[in-house]
């Protein structure tokens, strides 16, 4: 052979046309390495969603953050920092990941279906190249050895194929563990179903937060939502018109233990619900962890607070306003903020804005604060405003732009302090205010999510598939039994080997178990054992 080789020009790779490029990109996208990068990127991308306040979790915190960081705040907002999980870039990552997943799983499913119907492949020639192998010389003839091996393997749930060797003897190919790949595919496909179920719930579901004072009734309609939104595809005219009436509430706080004094301990609402207004009522109790199911929706008790019953009369004694007015709690001692809007007051509209304190104490003798969340010593502390109420979007806050606070003749702000049952006169002959009694309100969250059941089913299927894919061993075992020659005449030369798909530390045990089921070895021949 000549050592001088002609220099060949470097190989020219074929140029990828548009179809070729698409195929190349697709192969890259569906490769394991890409999936790995996307997974890790997804984890990194989720972190800002926990560090920065999110609108979906606590909108008030976001407003506070923007106020505290006027420079960098708006930029973070533009980049989606406060809505990370509905942002474009986060969605892009998980959508790409799912495309990669589907693109990899579908071909593998086809392959797997074919493999389930196929017989195990023929044995390789060199058993010593496999991860585990043994050789032995056994008593008995080849046929009976092979029969014993076959039944031992079948007892271990292998699919067995026996072939005859030229020159005598037999060969066995066996395979088990198709369930591993089935579980793997089920897991990944279940994730896709989960994603679709979550999307369906978002598009077709709706949620509403409502505040219902004791003695009031909530009728389910979009107009009555205090907060919350229907999904984009929800027909808001066709919401189920059930009603929930709050008859009473039971709320307790920790009183005995000093360290956790004031912590909420139990809260329940006794309600009567109907499927439609005027229909037959059903009494039930809603508490935390025990929601009410009514007409396809669920009513959750998420919060509670106080709704003092306040009556405002004009100077002639005519009632202008008399309602249980929800005051929203601001802290652990239920210092609550609210406003009474008296639209029918003459000559100017009237508003009473201030605090409700369930257990009042006066700091420094003058400033009212609440020192315990239960209504042990309730009081209202209100300022009076006159002017034009305007059309404020919230029932619980006062638009102060067209309202002016009332002042005493000496210029100090008018501040009214009322205890239950007390009536005070408003200055300038505007009338009287009465604090009739204290009521509580129930903070309900009403939800309808049509994708919930599918999401749960998909999650369970995913868990089952995951467990199967991790713990069912996928193995192939090969056996070659030939009649012995020379010194070993009458015995059988046996070779066994095993191969696993993926990580498997039990191959040696499997072969030992198989050998143990076959006959005893002839002692005078050295047993060759391979290290794994």
């Amino acid at each position, binding site marked *: 052979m000549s050592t001088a080789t002609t220099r060949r020009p470097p190989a020219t790779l074929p140029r990828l046309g548009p179809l070729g490029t698409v195929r190349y990109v697709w192969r890259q996208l569906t490769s394991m390495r890409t999936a790995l990068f996307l997974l890790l990127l997804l984890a990194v991308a989720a972190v800002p969603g926990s560090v920065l306040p999110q609108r979906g979790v606590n909108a008030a915190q976001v407003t506070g953050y923007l106020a505290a960081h006027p420079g960098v705040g708006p930029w973070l907002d533009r980049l989606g920092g406060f809505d990370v999980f509905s942002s474009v870039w986060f969605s892009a990552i998980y959508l790409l990941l799912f495309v990669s997943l589907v693109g990899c799983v579908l071909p593998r499913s086809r392959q797997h279906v074919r493999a389930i119907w196929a017989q195990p492949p023929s044995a390789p020639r060199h058993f010593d190249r496999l991860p585990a192998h043994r050789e032995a010389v056994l008593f008995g003839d080849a046929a009976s050895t092979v029969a014993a091996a076959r039944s031992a393997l079948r007892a271990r749930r292998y699919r067995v194929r026996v072939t005859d060797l030229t020159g005598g003897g037999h060969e066995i190919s066996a395979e088990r563990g198709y369930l591993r790949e089935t579980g793997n595919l089920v897991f990944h496909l279940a994730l896709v179903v989960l994603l679709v179920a979550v999307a369906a719930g978002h598009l077709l579901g709706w949620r509403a937060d409502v505040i219902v004072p004791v003695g009031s009734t909530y009728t389910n309609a979009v107009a009555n939502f205090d907060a919350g939104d229907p999904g984009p595809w929800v027909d808001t005219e066709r919401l189920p018109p059930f009603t929930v009436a709050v008859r009473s509430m039971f709320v307790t706080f920790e009183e005995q233990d000093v*360290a956790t004094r004031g912590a909420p301990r139990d809260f329940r609402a006794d309600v009567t619900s109907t499927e439609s207004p005027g229909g037959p009522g059903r009494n039930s109790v809603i508490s935390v962890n025990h929601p009410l199911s009514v007409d396809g929706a669920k009513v959750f008790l*998420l919060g509670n607070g106080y709704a003092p019953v306040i009556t405002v009369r004009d100077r002639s004694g005519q009632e202008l306003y008399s309602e249980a007015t929800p005051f929203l709690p601001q802290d652990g001692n239920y210092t609550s903020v609210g406003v009474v809007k008296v639209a029918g007051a003459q000559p100017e509209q009237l508003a009473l804005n201030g605090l409700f304190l369930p257990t009042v104490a006066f700091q420094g003798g003058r400033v009212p604060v609440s020192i315990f969340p239960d209504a042990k010593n309730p009081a209202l502390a209100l300022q009076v405003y006159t002017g034009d109420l305007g059309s404020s979007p919230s029932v619980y806050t006062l638009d102060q732009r067209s309202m002016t606070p009332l002042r005493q003749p000496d210029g100090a702000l008018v501040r009214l302090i009322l205890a239950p049952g007390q009536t005070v006169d408003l200055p300038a002959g505007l009338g009287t205010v009465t604090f009739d009694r204290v009521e509580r309100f129930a903070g309900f969250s009403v939800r309808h999510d049509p994708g919930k059941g599918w999401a749960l089913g998909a999650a369970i299927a995913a868990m089952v598939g995951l467990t199967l894919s991790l713990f069912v061993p996928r193995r192939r075992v090969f056996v070659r039994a030939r009649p012995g020659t020379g010194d070993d005449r009458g015995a059988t030369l046996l070779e066994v080997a095993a191969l696993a798909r993926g990580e498997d530390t039990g191959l040696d045990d499997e072969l030992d178990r198989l050998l143990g089921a076959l006959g005893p070895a002839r002692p005078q021949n050295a*047993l060759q054992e391979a290290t794994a």
Partner: protein
Amino acid sequence: MSVNDTLASSANVLLYGSMASYTGAFLGYTLDLAGGAERAERSSVAAPGRQLAQVGAGTHQVAAARTPAQTRGGDVPGGGDVPQQPRRKAAGIAVSLTVLALLLHLAAVLARGVAVQRPPWGNMYEFATAGSAVVTLAFLAALRWRDLRYLGTFVIGPVLLTLGLAVTVLYTRAGQLVPSLKSVWLAIHVSVAFVSSALFTIAFSLTVLYLVQERRERRLAAGEAPRRSFMDALPPARELDLTAYRLHAVAFPLWTFTLVAGAIWAENAWGRYWGWDPKEVWTFVIWVVYAGYLHARATRGWQGTKSARVALVGYGCILFNFLVVNIFFVGFHSYAGVS
């Protein structure tokens, strides 16, 4: 219902007792490791080819046709002419002390539970004490499967640290729970989270040891002079890696269950099964990172050290989830009870 304060203080005393026993166990494991280099040298002098044969031979069953001389506890399967490895007295004492410590520890957790008449995992102090008990339990259970006593220092050490943190910084007096925690899901979701985290903890220690051992083996193969170290007595890198993988493979489905159980509970308590609250986000992040670890082990070029590093990141996320998110990140999950 009132809290039984006497029982709660007995719980504290039992906990201090368990910490004393853990300290003894920790010293025992460390002594055992310290003698490791000498033990390894002695056994390699006796049988030069033995090191290779130890690969995978630790507790695997010997072939049926050979007379086995298999014993547990790190002894090499005896052949006729190879001397047995020296009995590891320090390790044996350490295990006994670990069992004692665990009994006291469990008694403390149980006493706390009876004192407050609810599962004793409702705030950070209780998470730390009950969680670390599960770590020790998982470690002792793993000892019955494989001889992992060399791991003792690296598992009992963190347990001791956690308990120290619990009784000093995280301590809260026994009390009742806020209403949203009063559910059967508290027992299910949190206990499975404990078991999963305990297995991740042990697997983390194994992964760190794997990386160290792998680097030593690489240096040895590159021709550097071998340095005597306690690591000589530990199994080879491949076995450490495989054991770590098997623990991760059990912990990951359990973590998936934690996530799903948490979602089911959230739907019952808060009206939605997933709201991206900080703890939910971090549970998700941990899940994704460990899913990445499992993927990495099946990806060409990422097996071995690279996938091990992903596992380390995952455990970092678990620590972050427990220490930082519980206390500093406000969301629906704010049950820390730490002021």
